[in-house]
């Protein structure tokens, strides 16, 4: 065993801890910079580097829990966390996470977890990649979004109002958000997003924030802070549940968390210096490359897939870090 290899007892393999640190660092930089959790890169990356799919999901969920603690500390200071909303949705999320985890274990027993979850990831990453490229394209051409999407946006408050008018008791008044909503609405939102989180090993923040804003009518800042609280509770439960099923590599989760915390500070600081939409183009391309690498893994080309997913993530994180260093030098020099 050399200096860079670590024995992971649950995975039962020697693993280069620098790869884990690099994955954590990249997702931290991207999460801090783009404001998206980036958790959906970790599960496929771990799977590409040799973790079985359920183990990759469980490890990702546990590391998301630790990362959310770091993030929620900042938001709690600003008073952006609606505790009642967070706890009530988390109840649903815990149910959903457990359903998702049981589906994964069922698929694993049949030998289908890897291919099916990889398919879901390929589709999601492709969708996100194309969406970001589309966003870049419209921003560069200085043309507002198409008429259909603006119509959709204007109809959203109406949808929130309709959902708020569902008055199946018990009705809950969310003090920090200033809205009343049925407990069942929050529970159903939690269960649906929880299933996705438990099945894919994501925090669910990218679905929770729009759901809180458009379906419940919560202000944006409170939606972001409260979604982090949900990620803490559901991440802790998901990590615990997968661990009980023997599918969490705690050592790997700790290294990922360390890398993510360092990266997140760099990403969050770099937003001050990086201008223009060019970086978004790179991000969109990176997501498409990540989808391709999952495809390569499925086609038994794990080595190429590993180089592709980690290489593209390192390139984009390196560019963001470079912008930060250049910005600091020009500011102080």
């Amino acid at each position: 065993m050399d200096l860079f290899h670590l024995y992971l007892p649950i995975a039962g393999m020697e693993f280069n801890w620098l790869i884990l640190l690099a994955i954590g660092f990249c997702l931290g930089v991207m999460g801090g910079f783009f404001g998206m959790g980036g958790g959906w890169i970790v599960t496929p990356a771990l799977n590409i580097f040799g973790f079985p799919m359920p183990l990759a999901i469980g490890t990702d969920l546990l590391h998301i829990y630790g990362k959310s603690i770091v993030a929620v500390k900042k938001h709690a200071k600003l008073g952006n966390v609606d505790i009642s909303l967070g706890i009530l949705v988390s109840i649903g999320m815990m149910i959903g996470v457990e359903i998702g985890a049981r589906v994964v274990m069922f698929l694993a027993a049949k030998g289908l977890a890897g291919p099916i979850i990889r398919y879901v990831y390929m589709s999601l990453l492709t969708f996100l990649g194309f969406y970001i490229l589309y966003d870049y394209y419209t921003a560069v051409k200085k043309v507002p979004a198409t008429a259909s999407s603006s119509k959709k946006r204007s109809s959203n408050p109406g949808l929130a109002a309709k959902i708020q008018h569902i008055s199946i008791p018990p009705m809950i008044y969310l003090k920090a958000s200033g809205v009343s909503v049925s407990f069942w609405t929050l529970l159903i939102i939690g269960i649906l997003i929880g299933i996705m989180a438990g099945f894919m090993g994501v925090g669910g923040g990218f679905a929770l924030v729009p759901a809180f804003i458009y379906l419940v009518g919560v202000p944006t800042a409170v939606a972001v802070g409260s979604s982090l609280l949900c990620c803490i509770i559901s991440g802790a439960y998901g990590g615990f549940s997968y661990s009980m099923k023997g599918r969490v590599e705690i050592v790997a989760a700790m290294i990922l968390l360390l890398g993510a915390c360092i990266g997140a500070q760099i990403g969050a600081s770099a937003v001050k210096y990086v201008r223009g939409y060019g970086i978004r183009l790179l991000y969109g391309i990176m997501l498409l490359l990540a989808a391709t690498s999952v495809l390569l893994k499925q086609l038994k080309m794990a080595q190429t897939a590993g180089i592709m997913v980690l290489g593209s993530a390192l390139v984009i994180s390196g560019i963001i870090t470079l912008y930060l260093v250049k910005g600091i030098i020009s500011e102080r020099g």
Partner: protein
Amino acid sequence: MKHLIRKEVTRMKKWMFFWVFLFYPVSVWAGEATKEPLHHVADISRATNFFTKWLAESYNNDRLLHSIAGVIAMTIMGIVLAYITEWIMGMLGYKTEKMDHTE
């Protein structure tokens, strides 16, 4: 210009349809499904330090203790890292929670 954008979006949608509904399912079908055992035993003899040895032992003998230890370890690490990173960034003159995106 709007016409061009619409054309571009239609082209992207066609590509997405091709990848998501045609190519990916074929790749999943082509890839071999491997059945993995649902319960396996951690190999304690290969653990090199006290921490990994303890993790492997608790994994084999007491899954509940192992799971609780994992959650507690991440809680402690999360809180410690939150304070350390905030302190370091503060020393460098950054208050990340006050930063806005400049794009």
